[in-house]
């Protein structure tokens, strides 16, 4: 085991996949000598050369579009979108093209493509460096959407994404890049895309979360266990699409209470899907309101610290919501 930060685990995964498979290459803005603006590709151009770590033009739709074309004819691209906020110019290529290629060719052409993007707020990034965009893509069959919350999972899931025959969106909590640390096994391992992870066991209620909010939810669960004796189970979804419905439902059938935490805007966010799933398939286990703790419905995370902190869920707010729901 080696202790790593979230971003170190991501770099290590790409390093290993580049070494393993000659068909893997990376492209995106500043991924070359700069090593990425967050340094996720640091050291890779030195090791693998500019043919395999390719600085792209500053044009997201073509970063993805080129990736799709290269993927369908046999390469294994990892495309970096510098911030998830800038993925929208590529929306048509992701949603209209990558997601539909396999279906529209009746299983003849597949798109083994990874799109990595740092997402999320709490970093002073304002409206355009803070967005959570997962709900747009988790709506689209044909895509896979992965959001890890630990270095262990980030490395294993990213390696699995590179080997997956489908387009995988891999969203990385930028707030956790350096603040989330954890043990990573030394040898080769994969974490399968799909299964959720029980991050904390408990039987009083279930907290559903992913990415940065899963990290915060475990902190909050530990707080309320120690301070209030509340045993909150934390389900770290890890993969939003395809969703691990069994684990989601099984936990709820045990606890009968659900708090869903996400840092996207509340309305139409991914938490709504979890809530619908529970209401539809586990109604008879319901022992309280299904609650969502999320960002307010405003068009972005504001820049000023006071407003940003107001927007963002955090361990204290989650602990508060847990206590509230446990008392119901």
């Amino acid at each position, binding site marked *: 085991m080696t202790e790593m930060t979230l971003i170190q685990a991501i770099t290590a995964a790409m390093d290993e996949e580049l070494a393993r498979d*000659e*068909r893997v*290459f990376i492209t995106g803005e500043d991924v070359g000598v700069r090593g990425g603006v967050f340094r996720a590709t640091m050291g890779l151009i030195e090791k693998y050369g500019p*043919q395999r770590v390719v600085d792209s*033009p500053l*044009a997201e*739709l*073509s970063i*993805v*579009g*080129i*990736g*799709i*074309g*290269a*993927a*369908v*004819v*046999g*390469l294994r*691209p990892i495309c970096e979108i510098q911030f998830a906020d800038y993925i929208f*110019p590529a929306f*048509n*290529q992701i949603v*209209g*093209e990558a997601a*539909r*290629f*396999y*279906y*529209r*060719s*009746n*299983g*003849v*052409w*597949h798109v*083994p493509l990874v799109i990595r993007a740092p997402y999320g707020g709490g970093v002073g990034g304002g409206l355009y460096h803070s967005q959570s965009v997962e709900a747009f893509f988790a709506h689209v*069959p*044909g895509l*896979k959407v992965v959001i890890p919350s630990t270095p262990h999972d980030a490395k294993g899931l990213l390696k699995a994404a590179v*080997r*997956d*025959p*489908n387009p995988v969106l891999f969203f990385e909590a930028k707030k956790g890049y350096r603040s989330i640390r954890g043990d990573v096994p030394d040898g080769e391992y994969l974490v399968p895309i799909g299964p959720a992870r029980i991050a904390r066991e408990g039987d009083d209620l279930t907290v559903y979360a992913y990415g940065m909010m899963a990290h915060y939810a475990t902190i909050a669960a530990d707080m309320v266990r120690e301070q209030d004796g509340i045993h909150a189970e934390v389900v770290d979804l890890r993969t939003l699409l*395809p969703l691990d419905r069994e684990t989601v439902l099984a936990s709820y059938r045990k606890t009968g209470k659900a708090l869903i935490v996400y840092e996207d805007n509340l309305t139409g966010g991914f938490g709504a899907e979890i809530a619908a799933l529970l209401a539809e398939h586990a109604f008879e286990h319901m022992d309280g309101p299904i609650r969502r703790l999320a960002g307010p419905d405003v068009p972005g995370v504001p820049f000023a610290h006071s407003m940003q902190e107001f927007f963002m869920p955090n361990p204290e707010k989650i602990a508060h919501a847990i206590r509230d729901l446990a008392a119901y």
Partner: protein
Amino acid sequence: MTTAAETRSYAAQLTRDTLIEMYRFMVVSRRLDERAWALHRQGKIAFHISAIGHEACQVAAAYAINRGVDYVFPYYRDLTLALALGSAPQDFLLGAFGKATDPYSGGRQMPSHFSSRALNIVSGSSSVATQIPHAAGAAFAIKYRLQRGLQAPDDATQPRLALTCIGEGSTSQGEWYEAMNWAGVHRLPFICLVQNNYYAISVPYDQQSALPNVADRAPAFGVHGVVFDGNDVLASYDALRAAVERAYRGEGATLAEAKTYRPVPHSSDDDDRSYRTREEVEEWKRKDPILRFGSTLMERGLLRQDDLNAIDAQARAEVDAALRDTLAAPDPAPEDALGAVYATEDTP
């Protein structure tokens, strides 16, 4: 920008058999296309979008590349191109009828969304220009494989370029600009064949661009530009073969513009009387690419009028047979709609 006079006469090197084969594909395409219009009028198919008028530049493109090996990313008007690459008339009809055995999409896509893994024709969507970045990506993959020693430079069994086609109106899309830019930056083995028929549905070309030619934009991308008469098979072949040679030699991408015309409505849902005069359409019908190529072949003493008639009769018989077989093919089961959402295996 290259003028026709500057290109070597590659067309002069085409053999009699090849010229006749090209002519045959044009005629089969035309007869099949006309049959599709008729089937639509009879209410037997829901939609048709036509290659009529575009046959010359399309057959030339197929013969300029390594047919069935080089990657092709077509658009909906590329019936002649698809046929000349090796897709059968029945493949098109199975798609037009949305049959379960439609090889392009299993009845999922609208007609004329050509696709064949065996022929390296890559599936496209209906959203115009989306295929251009894919073609540039495939060209990028070729260059990558050559640079990494994963493919030998002169191996003609492997794709050595990516060809993509698009209408002139669709070159207004950002997708086109970004892909052309990649092709220039990386000097990709890439050809974008713009079939400029002067209209995007009803909108004339001068509302798409302030420049007289689409290919005038080539210098902005650092790619080669060429404009040619897209209704002339030999002129089209000369220009496109020169582009292919450049791509194979590693000299980068070409923006090739065929000037042509669509003498029929945009699609079976269009009425072109609302936006252009009958006189204009009649004038272009006199420049019909099949009439022209037929005359050329006769002038050169390669074919006589009765040979042309025989080719025509053969084409009609071929279309009749393909239609008979298509009508006998099964429809998809309703729940086939649920299949093939995610790939489970990673084939290379």
